[in-house]
């Protein structure tokens, strides 16, 4: 038998199609992938350690920087976990605005995924279009929270502030206009021969394997498992909305593409229902020991100033115990496990990152495939390194 040699190829951490600082050490036989060793941690900032030294409110900005493409979702999971520990109820208006912002975030994240995924495979036009639409959501983000990416908008007990006048109109415009844009993307891609050749039958993972690898989100649903936390373990009032959960069949790259496209349309569906049910009301829970006072009280009364100062500097004590809260992040199940020892700082904050867990299956999904298809598989996993490395 002839001596068979493999070639080792380094891909990343500076590589345009690895979506951040992901490094893959790929062993190739010709162009066929034999082995992949992912090397991660280039963006490790020790978020979990940092959170142990901050009050519960001070840890919210840390969560923005996990999945920086879906910051509101990260905020949401964290504040829900803290609220569960405290046992406080969030007012209706705050819950509804949270759902609207979370679904806008899902749109934003999926738009960026589609843009980069298409660009990786060579479709430049879709990339430009998606960024154009994403910009609309970014401007809403900016007007609502003051920031385009690191929003830090949710607070334990509600929101940092109410939305601006005209917010409903801006969101309504998205609900009205975006379906047309989705039609454009689908027109450009869904029946495009090159797109089909690059995605159908590529990066296949079966339902059993996906569960074995702990995969969640669109990747799991693309493999045919009907599992969506918004439906199966609802939080923040998702049980009040009716929407479809798209499920794929074969578990290939094309299935995941279709699942995410339907999810974007369903996000609009949820947003429009939430807009209909949005009523005036308080945006913070009636829990003065936890929530910041309204800004008018801080600027005009000494009691309000003291109240604000106390919460900002000392935080608030949280009952001893431990909770886990999972939310359906655009990438999968984002979980927060918080252990409290009764003080104002979390004793341990564990973040269960969906991208980290999903990335693990990359060797399983692309072994035996061509090196060029690896790029499509990475794109269809929709990973973000801020969350993988934490």
């Amino acid at each position: 038998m002839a001596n068979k040699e493999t070639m080792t190829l380094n891909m990343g951490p500076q590589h345009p199609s690895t979506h951040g600082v992901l490094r893959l050490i790929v062993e190739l036989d010709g162009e066929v992938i034999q082995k992949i060793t992912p090397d991660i941690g280039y963006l490790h900032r020790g978020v979990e350690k940092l959170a142990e030294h901050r009050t519960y409110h001070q840890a919210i900005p840390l969560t923005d920087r996990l999945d920086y493409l879906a910051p509101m979702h990260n905020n949401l999971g964290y504040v829900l976990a803290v609220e569960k520990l405290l046992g406080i109820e969030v007012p209706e208006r705050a819950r509804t605005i949270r759902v609207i912002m979370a679904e806008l975030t899902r749109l934003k994240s999926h738009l960026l995924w589609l843009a980069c995924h298409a660009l990786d495979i060579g479709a430049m036009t879709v990339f430009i279009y998606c960024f154009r639409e994403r910009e609309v959501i970014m401007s809403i983000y900016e007007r609502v929270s003051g920031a385009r990416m690191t929003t830090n908008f949710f607070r334990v007990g509600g929101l940092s502030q109410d939305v601006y006048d005209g917010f409903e109109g801006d969101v309504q415009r998205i609900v009205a206009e975006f379906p047309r844009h989705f039609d454009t993307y689908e027109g450009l891609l869904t029946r495009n021969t090159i797109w089909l050749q690059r995605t159908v039958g590529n990066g296949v993972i079966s339902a059993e394997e996906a569960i074995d690898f702990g995969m969640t989100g669109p990747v799991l649903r693309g493999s045919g498992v009907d599992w969506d936390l918004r439906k199966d373990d609802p939080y923040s009032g998702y049980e009040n909305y009716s929407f479809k959960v798209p499920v794929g069949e074969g578990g290939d790259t094309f299935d995941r593409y279709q699942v995410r496209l339907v999810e974007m349309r369903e996000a609009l569906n949820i947003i429009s229902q939430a807009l209909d049910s949005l009523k005036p009301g308080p945006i913070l829970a009636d829990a003065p020991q936890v929530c910041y006072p309204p800004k008018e009280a801080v600027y005009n009364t000494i009691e309000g100033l003291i109240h604000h100062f106390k919460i900002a500097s000392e935080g608030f004590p949280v009952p001893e115990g431990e909770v886990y809260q999972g939310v359906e992040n655009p990438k999968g199940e984002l979980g927060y496990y918080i252990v409290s020892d009764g003080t104002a700082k979390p004793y341990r904050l564990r973040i269960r990152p969906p991208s980290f867990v999903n990335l693990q299956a990359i060797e399983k999904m692309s072994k035996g495939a061509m090196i060029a298809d690896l790029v499509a598989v990475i794109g269809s996993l929709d990973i973000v390194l801020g969350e993988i490395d934490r």
Partner: protein
Amino acid sequence: MAEENHAVIMLRARFADSIISAKKFRDEVTVTVRKEYITKICRFLKENLQFNFLIDVTAVDYMGKAPRFMMVYHFLSIQSKERIRLKVPVSESDPAIDSLVPLWNTANWLEREVFDLFGITFNNHPDLRRILLPNDWSGHPLRKDYPLQGPDREPYKGRLA
């Protein structure tokens, strides 16, 4: 009460002497078990109680208490939509526990992360290397005795100090 939970009843019936405690807090069931039985109990959870999804593996450092570490596993049943949390005490003198990779492939990286950040080793793990930190790093940052600013550095005293 945790004792009314189906999974807890089944676990008590099968592994009576290996269960340390069962608690329910905020509607979440936590069962604390002995280290030696972890693989058997997890196999039972997976094959008999339909907890087919290993969501998360992590650890907590309770420095100053004995045993020092607590391994924390989160399971999910896609069929019954239930969740359960398993906790396993691990002592400082023998920080090792059996790996769950034979049961779930997802345990691979999650256990590597626990090894990396807590220094707990896993028996029969196929590829136990650091994952987030470089291979030549010393120390385990999520241990409570690891300083926030890192080793050999002065603690940050504020901008004006």
